[in-house]
């Protein structure tokens, strides 16, 4: 029996989702005109969480690299923004440049850190973050562990400052999401997803593993750097201990692990969940953190694919077309085996 196959990138459903997403983006862009200051502040935080989650997922989910030192780039992003602003760079230019400094630092760090593997890389990154924190604390401008503030932001009226920070956060978020979306659909993205599924197998069919991992690492540095700069814009104060704290990595791991590691949609879902949990339980302080730890351990051991990974595996859900789908043409009996083949195209 002749069988006909076709490969397509999206289904009619993903196209509908894209249209809905576009409408949502337009609505969010009008935010400052429609929403109260309180909601705007919360949305800025949510945007930053999503940025953190997708950047850590790019590294761990697609690069296969677990880092517990991404706070290095978060802190560098904020620190570079403060330094640049001090040198006279306009503040709303200094902030994205600070994020870019995170990518630059990741590029430099990749030269030696990526030679480490597994757990060595994980803690090696933590050592690097600690070292950078201690070096930054030596800068007289930062005043040791006391910290400093992004004074240039005080020249703006609170309302316009909030709106500008909101738009900047939204722009960075959409830019990074777009870049990741484009990246995953490109040749590099196919390599990334191959490495995610099986690094050795990917290497054996000629995927250039090292450059692909470097790309994921620099992207993650860019995301964390941008998030740090935006957090600085939202909170204005900078203390090295807070920005270089390992809790940022703990949050990233929680969001990605719960949402679904190695999926495009999972980390976004995880960030929204994390944001909701923090809003509801954040006031309980340490018990909230105990809960985060317990849930992280639970997901790592019992549901390592996260919520989205489980949904995807069960229902074949796919909101955004980042992979390929195998479509069976006429002449192929669409029995149970066949439809399971269709669904297993995107996840090992």
């Amino acid at each position, binding site marked *: 029996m002749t069988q006909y196959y076709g490969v397509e990138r999206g289904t009619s459903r993903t196209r509908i989702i894209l249209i809905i997403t576009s409408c949502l983006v337009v609505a969010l862009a009008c935010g400052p005109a429609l929403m109260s200051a309180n909601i705007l502040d919360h949305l800025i935080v949510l945007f930053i969480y999503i940025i953190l989650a997708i950047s850590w997922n790019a590294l*761990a989910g697609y690069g*296969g690299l*677990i880092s*517990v030192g991404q706070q290095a780039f978060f802190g560098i992003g904020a620190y570079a923004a403060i330094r640049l602003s001090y040198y006279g760079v306009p503040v709303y230019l200094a902030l994205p440049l600070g994020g870019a400094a995170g990518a630059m630092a990741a590029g430099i760090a990749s030269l*030696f850190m990526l*030679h*480490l593997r*597994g*757990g*060595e890389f*994980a*803690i*090696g990154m*933590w*050592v*690097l973050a*600690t*070292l950078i924190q*201690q*070096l930054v604390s*030596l800068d007289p401008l930062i005043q040791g562990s006391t910290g400093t503030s992004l004074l240039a932001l005080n020249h703006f009226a609170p309302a316009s400052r909030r709106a500008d920070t909101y738009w900047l956060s939204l722009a960075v978020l959409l830019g990074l999401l777009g870049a990741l979306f484009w990246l995953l659909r490109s040749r590099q993205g196919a390599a990334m997803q191959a490495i995610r599924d099986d690094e050795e197998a990917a290497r054996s069919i000629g995927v250039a593993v090292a450059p692909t991992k470097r790309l994921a690492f620099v992207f993650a540095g860019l995301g964390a750097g941008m998030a740090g700069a935006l957090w600085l814009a939202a909170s204005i104060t900078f203390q090295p201990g807070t920005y270089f704290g*390992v809790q940022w990595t*703990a949050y990233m*791991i929680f969001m990605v*692990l719960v949402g679904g*590691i190695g999926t495009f949609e999972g980390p976004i879902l995880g960030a929204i969940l994390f944001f909701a949990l923090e809003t509801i339980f954040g006031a309980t302080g*340490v*018990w909230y*953190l*105990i809960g*985060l*730890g*317990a849930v*992280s*351990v639970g997901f*790592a*051991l019992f549901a*390592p694919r996260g919520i989205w990974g489980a949904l995807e595996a069960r229902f074949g859900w796919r909101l955004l077309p980042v992979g390929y789908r195998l479509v069976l043409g006429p002449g192929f009996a669409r029995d149970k085996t066949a439809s399971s083949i269709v669904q297993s195209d995107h996840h090992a």
Partner: protein
Amino acid sequence: MIWLNQLLQGILLGGYYALMAAGLSFLFGVMRVINLAHGSLAVLAAFLLLMIDHWLGVSPFIGLWLMLPIMALIGMVFQLGILERSLSGGPLIPLLATFGVSLLLDNILFAIFGANTQSFAPDIGSLSYGSWAIGHSIDISQLDALIFATALVLLVGMHLLLTRSQLGRMIRATAIDAEAASLSGLDPRRVRVVASVMAMIMIGVAGAALGMRSSFEPYAGGAQLIYAFEAVVIGGTGSLWGTLIGGIMLGIAQNMGATINPHLSQISGHVVFLLVLLVRMRMGSLRLGNFLRKRMRPSVVSA
């Protein structure tokens, strides 16, 4: 003279780091897992000892003999509940799970004990400040010497156990190839539980040393993990001796840095760590913790 003194103090400090690193290095050797909860477990051990001392009103040296069995029990639970399960989930899962455990432990300790820093220094009498003077400018702290000696005894003991005993052979066999070991009649699960218990006892001793020579608080685990890891990496691919050498090099680097400028103490430790990484990259042998494999020369196997 001041440099000689700093060198000596650095070596003694290195004994502490080697003690802290022993459990990490051993567990990695057996299971290829870097236990991100290592530092938090050491701090947990220190808090356990603190509770025992307060309840029973005994010295930490006596309480230790109650704390270590509890740590051994925790090691069993940790192995069966967390590590064994995560080992089958691919290379990323043990890291995520143990990091979650550290987050959990740190915050549980904070919920129970609060942010106060604790120390056993008041409970160990003159040992906390006693020292032997050598010449005019060199003082050897009795406690530092005791910790160094403990590290040495522990590492020598582990070395002998791994190379000379039946249990050591079983652990090495499991580390090299768990499947082959089970074909020849071993139960790798049980061997790994024993290894985890042994690692946890080492961590317990390290936690006691932490509380005696300085202070600790619920979130002190991260720094301990970093020091232990640096000692393991600087010491390199070698044996448990490598861990001792790595600890000593880290201690010397920190003390030399502190002599130049107090701010530089930790920074110079981290810098030496990164330099060792770079050098080893040039030499192309970055892999660490193969000590159990290296010891498996045929002559040793047949011993």
